[in-house]
């Protein structure tokens, strides 16, 4: 079998944010909802802000609190994702991947890595990226746009499936 090559794969900070944002929302979204609800309940019971009899005013205040919490929490999560990217020099490198029958070979200016297929737990589709899961919060980002001809995305998918990697 011819090895499949992906050359100069580069994940930018914007890519990393796009990839992680939905994941963070799915995992942490309920915390935001919980915190906002707790704050509104607290304010309601202490009726400082809610003292007015006007329903319009009460709805307005509630919406304002939801908006402020959304902006604050959203800003915090985005900052955390960016910090994670900036704090990982390995991820910022241009990398070349060589996928063979034995496993994955990754080469960049900072690392050379050989992983047998058995070390991969699955593959996740994140936007256009194929994320090979190799551990907790660890993995390799494959960009099908970087596939070297004649290999195509179909070949890449076939190879991943051939090695028993489930799409998770």
């Amino acid at each position, binding site marked *: 079998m011819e090895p499949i090559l992906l050359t100069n794969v580069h994940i930018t900070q914007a890519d990393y944010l796009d990839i992680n944002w939905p994941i963070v929302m799915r995992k942490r979204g309920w915390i935001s909802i919980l915190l906002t609800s707790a704050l509104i309940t607290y304010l309601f019971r202490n009726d400082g802000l809610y003292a007015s009899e006007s329903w319009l005013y009460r709805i307005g205040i509630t919406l304002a609190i939801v908006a402020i919490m959304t902006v604050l929490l959203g800003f915090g999560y985005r900052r955390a994702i960016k910090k994670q990217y900036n704090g990982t*020099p390995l991820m910022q490198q241009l990398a070349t991947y060589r996928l063979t029958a034995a496993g994955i070979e990754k080469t960049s200016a*900072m690392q050379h890595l050989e992983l047998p297929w058995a070390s991969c737990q699955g593959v996740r589709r994140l936007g256009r990226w194929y994320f090979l899961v190799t551990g907790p919060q660890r993995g390799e980002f494959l960009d099908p746009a970087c596939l070297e001809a004649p290999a195509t995305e179909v070949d890449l998918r076939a190879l991943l499936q051939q090695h028993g990697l489930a799409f998770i």
Partner: protein
Amino acid sequence: MMVVSIPEVQVNFRRYLALSLRYTFRRKPLTTILLVPWLLSVWLAGTLFTGPVTVLDFLQKEPLGTLFILFFLLLPLLTVWGTRRQYQASSLLQHAADYILSATGVGIRGPVVNADLAWPAFTRADRFGSWLLLQTSEQSAFFLDLEQVAAPANSADALAMIQASGVSIHS
């Protein structure tokens, strides 16, 4: 060229848990504040089981307070469970690996990974006793046991090599 090798390093779960907790408290000292509501919950739970007010009374009077106590009592269990899942999800942690430190970087040879990383890939190192957490990000690290450095080199050589590479060691 001088090479320091640390063969057959593997961290067991108990050590992994202890090192993870110590790392968290070192990097995020604010998490120690969580000990206050935890101790408070333990104390409150203790008084509920021994004192004149029964658990059911308290549940009726303070449903939110009961939830608060329950959450903090369970927090250590949740932490251990989360760390356990992390440990089991990492194939690198499950198997022993040989680490080879040189002037250019670190080589990792094991059944599930074969890697060479240049020194600039490492962001920082943290020492806890004989263990060194060599980090490539705040979320991922290699666990090295400096007591296992192969002769003729010793742990001081390993530390000197890491320091010379520009990676800061915190202890």
